[in-house]
């Protein structure tokens, strides 16, 4: 590209094409945070379920703290390595949405350590389902919208099956809510970047 003067039509075409380029770069790597949080949640859920089943010691529940301890730095490091050279307004809005839902998730988890029978897994799925659906609506990405709403509907299973098995339901919902749309989102981003 040079410093040449353009006519009116060329100027408008250039503006349109540059804005289009920016929009195409919006979704690159968008699925990675979903995969990090989805897989980490599933693995930790299965570990906690297994350890409690084997040892019958509920103190293993403290392993839930490993979830943010692993996922937050991994997401941060991955974002830095996958940097696409541009931060769009959509990236910023999605980050703020997840900050709000992340803090809300942490706050609703606290009573679980004091109140017996507190439906923490139900609350977390409901909140994360809302975050996922909102992300889908912002990205105009239907698999995320649907998986978010399906997760919200499935969250009630954690009220119905409130015992130890609710941890397995929790893991299953995260598979539907984050892992599946995360892979679809990455595949779509890959297709877009190949174009």
């Amino acid at each position, binding site marked *: *590209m*040079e*410093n*040449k*003067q*353009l*006519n*009116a*039509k*060329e*100027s*408008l075409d*250039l*503006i349109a094409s*540059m*804005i289009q*380029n*920016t*929009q195409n*770069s919006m979704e690159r790597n968008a699925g990675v945070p979903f995969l990090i949080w989805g897989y980490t949640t599933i693995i930790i859920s299965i570990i906690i379920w297994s350890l409690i089943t084997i040892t019958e010691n509920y103190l293993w529940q403290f392993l839930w703290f490993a979830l943010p301890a692993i996922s937050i730095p991994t997401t941060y490091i991955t974002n*830095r390595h996958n*940097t*696409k*050279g*541009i*931060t*769009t*307004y959509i*990236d*910023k809005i999605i980050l703020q949405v997840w900050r709000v839902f992340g803090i809300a998730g942490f706050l609703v988890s606290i009573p679980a350590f004091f109140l017996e029978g507190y439906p923490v897994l139900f609350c977390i799925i409901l909140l994360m389902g809302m975050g996922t659906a909102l992300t889908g609506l912002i990205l105009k990405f239907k698999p995320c919208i649907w998986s978010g709403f399906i997760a919200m509907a499935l969250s009630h299973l954690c009220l119905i099956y409130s015992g130890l098995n609710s941890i397995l339901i929790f893991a299953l919902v995260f598979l539907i809510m984050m892992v599946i749309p995360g892979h679809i989102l990455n595949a779509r981003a890959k297709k877009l970047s190949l174009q």
Partner: protein
Amino acid sequence: MFKDLNPLLHSELRLAIMSLLLSAEEADFVYIKEQTKSTAGNLSVQLDKLSSAGYIKIAKGFIGKKPNTSCKITNAGRVAFAEYVDALKSYIIPHP
């Protein structure tokens, strides 16, 4: 009546830079270079011109150990861009 086009924006590379930054929160030098298919030297000169006019803000820093230059459009840049597009319309829309 044809309106005057802002000469600072009425150049292919500078207009491309402003259009990119308009729809982004911020973009780094390498990304702008790739998208505009310009040379590093020319891009640097044009970014300085836009920065001197107050249309963009340039921040130099590091990502890890790598130097990074990121650019952001300012409010003055947005206003100038809107006025430029408005002036362009006078060339496209037929006058009675």
